[in-house]
């Protein structure tokens, strides 16, 4: 009759044939008689409750809950059968039981409404979400990717460059480096000549970076600052917006 699973260490509550506990049984009896939940109705269903409890086959510790309610019902019923002094109004413990039952009824109703939502599960992603879209759409090529790619290729070229003069045909385009400078200025608010030339810059890169800086200063897109003797030359945005 019970489905207690102690073997797993997870204890499920005792499943009774038709109800979840003493209050549930009591509520079913009251509802079956279409009675309002009052002291009187509780006294009325006492016999039915006791009959059901007699038929129960549950663990002793669960049974105790049923017996607690049963004893309260019996007390109630006895008070209704025996004449009471007229001064005594409603029994607080009876009203308490009725209130407990009404509260329980509301939560049972709430559970039924929640049950209607069961199955309208919202899923999270079953597989990890894909990385940002690979940008083969040239229109929206992210600036960061462009910048990284440029740096990578500059570095690679530098690594392959033999000692001595640059390989004929290698050409760094001034306009590329100017564009890089403008982007870095916009992003970071400053860019150094060293940054423009790239890591491990050779003579060609340094020259192109210098020319790019000159071009920006000449067009008043940036101003060049050197904070001390031999300090790195840094480009900063012009105070007025670009005109």
């Amino acid at each position, binding site marked *: 009759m019970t489905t207690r699973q102690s073997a797993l260490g997870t204890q499920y509550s005792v499943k009774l044939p038709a109800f979840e506990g003493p209050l549930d049984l009591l509520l079913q009896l009251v509802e079956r008689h279409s009675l309002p*939940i009052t002291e009187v109705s509780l006294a009325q269903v006492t016999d039915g409750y006791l009959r059901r409890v007699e038929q129960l086959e549950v663990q002793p510790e669960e049974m105790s809950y049923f017996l607690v309610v049963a004893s309260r019902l019996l007390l109630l019923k006895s008070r209704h059968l025996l004449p009471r002094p007229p001064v005594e109004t409603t029994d607080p413990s009876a009203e308490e039981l009725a209130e407990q039952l009404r509260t329980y009824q509301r939560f049972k109703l709430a559970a039924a*409404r929640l049950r209607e939502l*069961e*199955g309208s*599960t919202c899923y*999270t992603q079953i597989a990890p979400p894909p990385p940002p879209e690979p940008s083969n759409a040239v229109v929206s090529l992210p600036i960061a990717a462009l910048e990284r790619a440029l740096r990578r290729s500059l570095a690679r070229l530098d690594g392959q460059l033999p000692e001595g003069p640059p390989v004929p045909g290698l050409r760094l385009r001034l306009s590329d480096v100017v564009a890089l400078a403008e982007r870095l200025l916009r992003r970071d608010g400053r860019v150094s000549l060293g940054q423009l030339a790239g890591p491990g810059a050779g003579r060609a890169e340094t020259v192109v970076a210098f020319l790019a800086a000159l071009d920006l200063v000449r067009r008043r897109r940036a101003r060049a600052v050197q904070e001390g003797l031999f300090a790195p030359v840094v480009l900063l945005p012009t105070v007025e917006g670009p005109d």
Partner: protein
Amino acid sequence: MSDRTESLVEALLFASGRPVTPAELASALGVRREEALEALRSLRDHLSWRGVRLHEHAGEWQMVSAPEAARAIERLAGLPSPQRLSPAAMETLSVVAYRQPVTRAQVEAVRGVDCSGVLGSLLARGLVEEVGRSEGPGRPILYGTSLEFLRLFGLESLDRLPAFPELDPIGGSRANSSKNG
């Protein structure tokens, strides 16, 4: 500008695949926390008719699929529908949902039975979580529902819980209340 933030927030929620806080989003976007929160709220409104939704719980936001797509997703992914909760679990869950934060003793006072087993399996399933300690004697654990709970029942936030049922003022039991699931 705000539209742009909203669209970036959408991308972040999608790409992260986990619940995130407005503070995290703000820090990733370089905006103020309030701006991130505003973008989240506005995005939630915009998504309400779409196939994805935003869920919010305890300051964390997560992108999820729309509840009406549950069956189709289960079919596509070959997932079984989530196991139905037992009546005892449903009752306990509804007490926790409507009374949270709540102690085990308070749940048991409502249900009139021992609830440690049921609460334990709701905790194990991640539908209920510990949310703190009560100030009362013995400082018992306080329980509340989780983001997982909202997901299982397709609720955007706890505000969307069905209204707590009122009883007939006479206290009468109405026909639809005697549902023994």
